[in-house]
């Protein structure tokens, strides 16, 4: 099953040029990566809890993954 948000985060970790493009024009990058509005908003927020919540939604999981944010439940509810 495709996981565009996860795949795009992996790309941002690995590809400095893509990270630079995102910092310059996040809307264009979000669109070309095929992300939903909620996923794009999470990424553009630069908020770690928000991004983690979007990952959890994409993976259909509220299970703690590594170090979870204490506010995660509320954020997941917001993204649904």
């Amino acid at each position, binding site marked *: 099953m495709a996981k565009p948000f996860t795949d795009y985060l992996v790309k941002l970790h690995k590809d400095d040029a893509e990270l630079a493009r995102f910092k310059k024009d996040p809307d264009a990058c979000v669109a070309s990566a095929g992300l939903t509005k909620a996923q794009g908003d999470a990424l553009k927020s*630069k908020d770690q809890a928000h991004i983690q919540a979007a990952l959890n939604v994409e993976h259909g999981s509220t299970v703690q*993954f590594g170090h979870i944010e204490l506010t995660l439940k509320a954020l997941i509810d917001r993204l649904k």
Partner: protein
Amino acid sequence: MPGSLTCVGVGIQFGAHASMGARRSIAAADKVLHLAGDQATAAWIDELNPAAESLHGLYALDKPRIDIYNEMVERIMNFVRAGMDVCVVTYGHPGIFAYPTHEAMRLARGEGFPATMLPAISAIDCLYADLGIDPGTNGCQCYEATDFLARRRVFDPCTALVLLQIGLTGDFTHQDVYALKGYQVLLEVLEATYGPDHEIVIYEAARFPVCDAVIQRLPLSKASRARILATSTMFVPPKGPAPLDDAMLERLGLSAESRAQK
């Protein structure tokens, strides 16, 4: 088949922090077992080695964390004993706040299997970089927050103090949301030594490349208002420089000039 164990960490952000040695160890292993910090890191580990498997499935709510960790050790050792070259991957440093890796290393070596741990970048390393702290200047004390309180650790207020897992203070079980029940106690203990106006830092390393580290600076008297996460670390700067010991300086043969430099 001989079997072996290699423990590696991928840092807080794998793209920027994972070493070549860690990448090679992951790619070359017969079996990879990981505790990735998030699903993107897990996906990257899967790319490097399709035989990767998460250990996160062993977590269960309300279960004592030590029981979960021991199950992880058993899972790791089952593959090593089966003769596989096993690579265990953690976020951060594989040997910092990582009981399962240390215990698996101890068991593996005790049973005659080759076992290696590669160093990696931990949250503390990120803290030094982001806050501009040099532990060589005033020294540095580092404790897990619950251990710091429960054992009434004797600490030096003239030395920097790092307290890890402050969001889990007073809780030995695994939860998806921690109640921060011990955090207020921690603040009271610190305030008794440092006073209410002493400024501390609540720190969270940047986990994703688009994010900055989260740095909250506030006096101890207002630290209860801080946003505390399970990943939060508290940095308590020293109250001031530690006094020099003239008798020791004499014994060391240090000059008046070197005293002045200190």
